[in-house]
């Protein structure tokens, strides 16, 4: 498998679901065909080209996805909250991103308003491309149905009632969904924190070392590369030896015991 630097691949496989038999990976197209590793469970089943991709894109002048508005400071996941002037955004990319984010945020606020205060809300937004996005509680139709200027003038408009529809989830169920969302959000934060923690440890481990083992391969000088290659080979062999040891000790004993008891 040749790592293609122009394609930052991101496979989202939940590693908890990986089975030891490796059956999942038989069908996994993106994995390298290295026979040794193809059948064993992986901690992070993703081609290692994030680093290379970012370097390559830097040389080619393309921005990595998610950093369209400029590189964040090193060590920071994003640019953080920025004060922005309320004026039409000229740049297409930024405008698109902003509209998406703000739309979601606005829907969220609208949903909170309706839940907290028992109000009926309808928000309708268009996009530059002409698509419509609408949010409504209890539903867009329900609210607009009562909106007088749109009615054909046939009598008084009713008040939008939060009807207890048999199919619709109750307030309690929705609340539970909300809680689950908050919980997942907390988990995301936890994982990000874990990664920052590990990144710190990596920096510590690299400090004061003679060779930047971790360094961009491109940056290593020609003299260092062969040493690095040898070290990697040694490590890989050690790892495979260790894996075989572990596998043999976990798999062999039952058979051996059975044979002994036959005596």
């Amino acid at each position, binding site marked *: 498998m040749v790592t293609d630097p122009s394609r930052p691949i991101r496979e989202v496989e939940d590693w908890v679901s990986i089975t030891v038999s490796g059956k999942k990976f038989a069908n996994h197209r993106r994995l390298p065909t290295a026979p040794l590793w193809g059948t064993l*469970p992986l901690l992070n089943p993703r081609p290692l080209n994030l680093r290379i991709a970012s370097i390559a894109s830097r040389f080619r002048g393309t921005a990595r996805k998610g950093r369209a508005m400029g590189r964040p400071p090193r060590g920071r996941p994003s640019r953080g909250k920025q004060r922005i002037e309320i004026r039409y955004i000229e740049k297409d990319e930024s405008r698109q991103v902003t509209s998406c984010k703000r739309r979601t945020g606005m829907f969220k606020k609208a949903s909170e308003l309706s839940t907290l*205060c028992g109000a009926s809300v309808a*928000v309708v937004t268009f996009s530059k491309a002409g698509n419509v996005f609408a949010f409504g509680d209890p539903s867009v139709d329900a609210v607009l149905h009562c909106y007088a200027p749109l009615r054909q003038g046939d009598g008084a408009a009713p008040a939008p009632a939060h009807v207890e529809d048999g199919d619709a989830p109750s307030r309690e169920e929705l609340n539970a969904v909300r809680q689950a969302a908050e919980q997942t959000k907390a988990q995301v934060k936890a994982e990000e924190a874990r990664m920052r923690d590990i990144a710190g440890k990596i920096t510590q481990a690299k400090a004061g070392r003679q060779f930047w083992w971790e360094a961009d391969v491109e940056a290593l000088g020609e003299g260092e590369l062969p040493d690095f290659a040898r070290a990697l080979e040694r490590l890989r062999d050690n790892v495979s030896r260790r894996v075989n040891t572990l596998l043999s000790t976990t798999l062999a004993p039952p058979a051996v015991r059975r044979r002994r008891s036959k005596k």
Partner: protein
Amino acid sequence: MARKKVKLQRIANDAKRRTTFRKRLKGLTKKASELATLCGVDTCLVVYGEGEAQATEVWPSVPEATGVLERFKAMPQLDRYKKMTDLEGFLKERIGKLLEQRKKARCDADESETKLLLVEALDGRRVGLEGLTIEQLTSLGWMADARLKIVNERLEKLRGQGLLPSTTAGYIHGY
């Protein structure tokens, strides 16, 4: 702006609920106005307070909002409903997005963990590779393998350019 965490359920206290309603309605209108200005898109907002028969708030103004809604109504049904959500749908979408984020974050963190192992192992600080699970070992070996491939590719390229002596005895490098 989190002074106190608010429980997301209907506020029992009547007075509090009315105040919150006014405040949040103001905030929502502000957001709508910002969105409309920043992105130059038609937006409208219709809010009925609890039990109200008349719309408590229509933004930007009744004629403008009605215009937007007429445009909305004029769209073919499929396009209208494609991106229409109610509370349930919106919350489910949100959870879906968060789950994706969590997966990605977990993946990144796991990869970082493997990187750390690699650095430590190359540093000679993981004698015998004790105490590592099969998953960790496999990922470690896989990462080492991947890097090795990159290094070898680069070596091949350099050898091809004549910048390195070929390890396999062969040509005399030079000009």
